[in-house]
């Protein structure tokens, strides 16, 4: 049954369908909306939603709840996500499955999301849905991947995703349909093993019970190997009209819907443009992008920031023979007075102009922030 839901409601429903039973957060637009949806629904499902007193406490609560093996989510927006970086980094090292919603104000947090804003070598799986329907799928997938890899998964959403209402049908997905059976949570800490000699310490620093100190080699190497495996296994993307495209537009998240719309329009008009969207921002689908861009003269990055994803595009195309000038930015910083990220770039007419300009080798400007290169 399809029902009309705003993104924030649909995501909460999808999370609950995926078995999420704990949520904690601190209000901040547009994350507040998600928090409200969870606060309303989780108690009805026998779960708990805590209005934490700050983002630091929210992610701490999520950490503790997830450590017991429950499916758990938290999140925030901008400033709040920045505050969580210390924990994000260390939760990754403690190998705790957790879903984190970054309900961002625009796309300026791409670096933070994909490189980890915290300390040390770590990456989160980052999924960026294009619309509410995909967010429903991706939310369920996120819980699956988190459990599969014992790794935090970040969902990169925004104001548009939280507020757009769509007709959606939410049905619990089986583990099989999401990638296969999941490992047992035999690492979880439920309190039952005290005094047995097999009690656990779920920790981010590789400390082992019964022995002093740690073996950093083994600890770090294993974590890095896991990340390498994730990188190989979990790249996801969407591509359209790449055959014969002279120009390939690359965009992610809700902004990609503007790009896809325009590319479809232009193609219908016979203009040779293609469209590529990373669904996983990390691992970035570099191989697929290189293939999609194989025939193109120009790769145009549409992102709502000063140029961040463009690095991953260039890294993916490194050594492909494309000259430096062939990868251009057609996005830019673009925001509204409230700072919610609803800027003038979110306009198919503007996007259309910029794609045409890139195709014709013209400079574009006139929109906030301007193009980057």
């Amino acid at each position: 049954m399809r029902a009309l839901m705003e993104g924030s409601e649909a995501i909460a429903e999808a999370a609950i369908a995926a078995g999420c039973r704990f949520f904690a957060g601190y209000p901040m637009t547009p994350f507040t909306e998600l928090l409200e949806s969870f606060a309303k629904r989780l108690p009805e499902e026998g779960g708990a939603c805590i209005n934490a007193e700050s983002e630091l406490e929210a992610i701490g609560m999520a950490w503790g709840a997830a450590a017991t093996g429950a499916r758990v989510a938290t999140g925030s927006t901008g400033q709040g996500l920045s505050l969580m970086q210390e924990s994000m980094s260390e939760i990754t090292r403690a190998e705790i499955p957790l879903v984190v919603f970054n309900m961002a104000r625009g796309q300026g947090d791409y670096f933070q999301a994909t490189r980890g804003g915290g300390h040390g070598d770590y990456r989160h799986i980052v999924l960026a849905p294009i619309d509410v329907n995909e967010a429903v799928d991706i939310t369920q997938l996120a819980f699956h991947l988190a459990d599969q890899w014992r790794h935090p998964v970040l969902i990169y959403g925004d104001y548009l995703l939280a507020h757009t209402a769509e007709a959606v049908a939410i049905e619990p997905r089986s583990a099989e349909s999401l990638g296969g059976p999941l490992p047992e949570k035999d690492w979880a800490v439920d309190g039952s093993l005290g005094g047995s000699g097999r009690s656990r310490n779920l920790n981010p620093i590789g400390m082992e019970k019964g022995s002093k100190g740690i073996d950093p080699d083994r600890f770090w190497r294993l974590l890095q190997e896991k990340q390498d495996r994730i990188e190989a296994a979990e790249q996801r993307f969407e591509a359209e009209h790449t055959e014969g495209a002279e120009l390939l537009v690359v965009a992610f998240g809700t902004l990609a819907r503007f790009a896809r719309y325009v590319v479809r329009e232009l193609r219908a008009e016979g203009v040779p443009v293609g469209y590529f969207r990373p669904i996983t921002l990390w691992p970035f689908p570099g191989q697929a992008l290189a293939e999609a861009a194989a025939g193109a003269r120009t790769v145009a990055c549409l992102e709502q920031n000063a140029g961040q994803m463009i690095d991953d595009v260039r890294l993916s195309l490194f050594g492909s023979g494309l000259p430096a000038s062939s990868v251009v930015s057609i996005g830019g910083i673009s925001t509204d007075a409230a700072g919610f990220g609803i800027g003038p770039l979110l306009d198919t007419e503007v996007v259309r102009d910029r794609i045409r300009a890139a195709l014709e080798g013209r400079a574009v400007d006139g929109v906030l922030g301007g193009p980057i290169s």
Partner: protein
Amino acid sequence: MSVEREIFLTGIGGQGVQLAAKILALAAIREGRHVMSLGTYGGTMRGGNTDSTVVVADGPIHTPPIVSRGWSAIVVHPQYWEPLRPKLRAGGVVVFDANLAADGLDAGVAAAFGVQASDLAREADAGRAGSLVLLGAYCGLTGIVSLEALQDAMQDAVPPYRHQHLEANGRALALGHAALSPAHVPAWEDTA
């Protein structure tokens, strides 16, 4: 690609605009359409305009939620109408409250239809439901959804603690629906 019908709703304060948008979206779902809508407020709790965009289609919607060019508009209050006008397509249709825009409404390349919405709302005993009158009128004019679907959707959309308004709301929708020539500007080709 599917036929997509975009409806801009604009007004000030209150919840009339958002409610009307929600009823339209719910009614369209009832009739098996694909739907997307996005409401925008001032951002914080305090003041500002209230707009909403609804897209109804006979297949998956490919328009993004912020719509640059649209087919139609419902103008509950003309205060924030200006920036919308250039977004209307030729062949588009605008329904407005003729009580509030007594001198008519410049709809640019679109065709404008005035409805004495405030008067009709009072007649329906639903003083603040001008938006519903206009919604009814718009649906009558375009046949985008049926009156029955509208009425049912309205029942779903109104929260329990406002159920005392159900009847008057229903009358407002019906009076509006009857106010303009039925299916004069059909939304769907097959319903023309």
